[in-house]
C-alpha cells in the first residue's frame, strides 16, 4: 500500500488507508480537545490553499472555517475563471500556486489519486478533501468522531452503509476507518452499485442487497447520496424503484436498534435516499456531523502544520 504516510509524523492526509492507528487516535483526540476548549491561534501567519477542482460547499467552507479558527489565512481556487478552466495541467497549476508561498494545500478533485500526485510533487502538506471515488479521509474521521459522541466505543458496533457504495469515496474511507477501529460493516445497495470485490475489505465487511437485512439490529445507519445520473449509466431503472428498495424510512429504521443513530455525509435529497422524517428525527445526527467536521479539519490542519503546538 502507499508508503507515503506510513508512520508518524503525518506529512500529508491523503487517505485513511495510509494512516496508522496512532495517527487516527491523535486526530480524534485533538478534535475532542478543540470541542472542549477554544483553540489557540496555532496557525497564525500560515496560508492554506483551498484548491477545489470539484464543486463543494460544505467541505470547502468547513476547511475554511477550521483554518481561520486556528488563525490561518485561506486562499481559494476553483475551476471557474481560473487557469484550470483554460486546461492547465494539474502539476503546473500546483507549482504556480506553491510559488505564492502557501503552507498547505487542501484539495478536492474528481480524479482518484490526484492529491497523491500533487503530494509527490510539492514540499508542503496536502490534505485530501475528496478525490474521485477514492477517499475522503476527513469525512470518515468526522463520522468516527460523531459516532464516538453517541457510543462508548466503535469496536463491536454494527454499522450499515446504504446506497451507491461503488462510487462513494465516503464509503471507502469509512470502511477503512471503522473496520480499523473494530466495527462490523454491512454494505447495502443494488448489485450494480455493490461489486462483490468489496468483500476483500476484510471479514468484518458483509454485503447485502436487502435493506431490511442491513438495518436489522444496526447501531449506526449511514445513508449515502444517490446521484440520479447513475440511471443514465443503467445502474438502476428509476428513482421510484430506488426509493422503494433503498430509501431509509422511519418504518424501515424500526428494524435497527432503538438507540441507532442515522448519518448522512450530505448533500442529502429528502424523499429519495432518506425520508424527511428520518432526517429530522431524534436519531439523526446529520447536523452534528457538519459541526464536527470543523473540529476534525482543525485537528488535521494543526497536526500537519503545527504538530508540536
Amino acid at each position, binding site marked *: 500500500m502507499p508508503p507515503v504516510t506510513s508512520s508518524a509524523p503525518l506529512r500529508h492526509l491523503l487517505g485513511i488507508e495510509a494512516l496508522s492507528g496512532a495517527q487516527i487516535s491523535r486526530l480524534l483526540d485533538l478534535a475532542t480537545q478543540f470541542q472542549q476548549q477554544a483553540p489557540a491561534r496555532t496557525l497564525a501567519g500560515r496560508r492554506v490553499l483551498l484548491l477545489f477542482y470539484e464543486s463543494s460547499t460544505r467541505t470547502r467552507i468547513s476547511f475554511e472555517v477550521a483554518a481561520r479558527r486556528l488563525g490561518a489565512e485561506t486562499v481559494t481556487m476553483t475551476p471557474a475563471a481560473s487557469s484550470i478552466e483554460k486546461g492547465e495541467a494539474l502539476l503546473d497549476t500546483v507549482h504556480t500556486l506553491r510559488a505564492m508561498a502557501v503552507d498547505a494545500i487542501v484539495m478536492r478533485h474528481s480524479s482518484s489519486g*490526484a492529491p497523491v500526485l500533487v503530494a509527490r510533487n510539492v514540499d508542503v502538506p496536502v490534505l485530501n478533501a475528496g478525490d474521485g*471515488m477514492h477517499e475522503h479521509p476527513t469525512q470518515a474521521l468526522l463520522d468516527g468522531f460523531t459516532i464516538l459522541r453517541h457510543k462508548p466505543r466503535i469496536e463491536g458496533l454494527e454499522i450499515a452503509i446504504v446506497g451507491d457504495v461503488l462510487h462513494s469515496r465516503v464509503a471507502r474511507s469509512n470502511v477503512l476507518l471503522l473496520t480499523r477501529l473494530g466495527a462490523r460493516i454491512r454494505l447495502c445497495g443494488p448489485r450494480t452499485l455493490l461489486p462483490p470485490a468489496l468483500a476483500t475489505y476484510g471479514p468484518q465487511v458483509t454485503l447485502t442487497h436487502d435493506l431490511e437485512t442491513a438495518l436489522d439490529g444496526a447501531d449506526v445507519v449511514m445513508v449515502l447520496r444517490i446521484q440520479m445520473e447513475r440511471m443514465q449509466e443503467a445502474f438502476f431503472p428509476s428513482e421510484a424503484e430506488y426509493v422503494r428498495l433503498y430509501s431509509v424510512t422511519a418504518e424501515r429504521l424500526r428494524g435497527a436498534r432503538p438507540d441507532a443513530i442515522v448519518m448522512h455525509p450530505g448533500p442529502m435529497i429528502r424523499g429519495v435516499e432518506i425520508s424527511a422524517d428520518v432526517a429530522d428525527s431524534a436519531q439523526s445526527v446529520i447536523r452534528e456531523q457538519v459541526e464536527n467536521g470543523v473540529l476534525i479539519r482543525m485537528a488535521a490542519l494543526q497536526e500537519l502544520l503545527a504538530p508540536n503546538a
Partner: protein
Amino acid sequence: MNLILKNGRLFDPSTGRDQIGDVVIAEDRIRSLGRDIAVEGPGTLDCTGLIICPGFIDLHVHLREPGFEYKETIETGTLAAVAGGFTAVCAMPNTKPVNDNAGTTSLLVARSRELGNARVYPIGAISDGSKGESLAAIGDMHRAGVVGISDDGRPVMNAQILRRAMEYASMFHLPVIEHAEDLHLSAGGSMHEGAAALRLGLRGISGASEDTMVARDILLAEESGGHIHIAHLSTAGSVRLVRDAKARGVRVTAEVTPHHLTLIDEDVRDYDANFKMNPPLRTRLDREAVIAGLADGTIDAIATDHAPHAAHEKQQEFNRAPFGIIGLETALPLVLRLVDAGRLTLARMVDALSCRPAAIFGLPGGTLEPGTVADITVFDPEQRWTCDPAQSKSKSRNTPFAGWEFKGRASYTLVGGRVVYRAAP
C-alpha cells in the same frame, strides 16, 4: 565481406540447433554454421558465453512518427529496438496522419531503410482514419509494404466491418490484428476491474471487455476463413478461447506483452501512470494463464506494445494520463525471468520472440539456416544490469521497471549482416 560470430551458443528453435559454434556471414546472408572456423580477420566477434539466435521480431511497436515525434521517432524507436535485441519491428498505424494509405506506408519504409537500424514493417489501418467505418486502402498499402492491418488502440466495434476486413485482407495474406476491447464495457476505465481498482477508486476495464471481443473475432475468422491475430492478449478467458479455437483449426494467432507476463493489477501503486496501459495489468490468475498459454504455444508471440509517451503526459491524474509503456529494451530480461524460474524453456522464448512472429506474419528471418537473411541477436543471458530509464535509447521514459535489477542483455544485434548494435564494453 565476411563477418564471423565466434564460439557462441548457436540456438535456433526453428531447426532445433543448440551447440557451441560459429556463424559465417557473407554480405547480408548467413553463409554457414560450424565449429572452429579458421577464417580470421577484422570481422570477427568473440561470442564466448553468449547466445546466438535468430533476430527478435516485435510484432507490436508504436514508433509515433509521423505526427508524435516528441514521443518517439523512427530513429529513436529503432535504436531502442536494436538495443533490446530486436532486428525488426512492426509499426502500428495510429500516427498522425493514421497509416491508412500507401503514401504514409512508403514514408515509413523509406525512412527506416535510410536509417538502417532495425527493419520496420508497417502495419496499415483496417479502416480509414481507424474510425471503424470504411475499409482503408488495404490493397494499395499491401503493395507499399504493410505486413498486417490493425486499428490498434481503437477496436473495430462494428463486426460487419471487421468481417469484411478479414475477407478482403485474406486476398493479400495479411493478418488482421485486433485490439480486443468492447468499448461499452470498458468505458471510462483506467485499470483492470477488480479489488485493486475498487480500492484505488478507479473505474475498471473488465476481463470480459477483452474476452467478448476475442470470442467475436474468433467466430468471424472461423466464418470468413481469414487470419485474426489477437494483439496483447491479457486474460485467462482469452487464452482459453484462443486455445479452443486453435484446436478447431481456426486461423487465430496471439501475442502477449512482457509486462502482462510480469506485473498484475495489485502492482499499480500511488497512481503512478507508468503502470497504466491498455489492456491493463490483470489479476494474478490472468498472469498465470498467459504464462501457461505462452509456454504451451497457445500464445504464439511475445510483443512489447512499446508505447512511448512524454513525461508531462504521464505526470497527470491517473485517469487522464495516456495508456502505454515503453518496452523494447526491457523485454529480453523480463522474459528471461520466466526462463530462470522454469516457467518457460529457452527454446520457447526464442521461438516466441523470433521464429513464430516471422512465421505467422510471413516475415524474413526467424532462423539461422544458411542462405537466409542474417538478422541475428546475440545476447548475454547472465549480464546483470539495473533498469535506468534515463539510459533508454527511446525518446520517452515511461516504464514501470525503473530500478529493477535485470539479468540478460543484448550484446550484438545484426540486421542484414551488419552490426547495428554493440553493447558498451
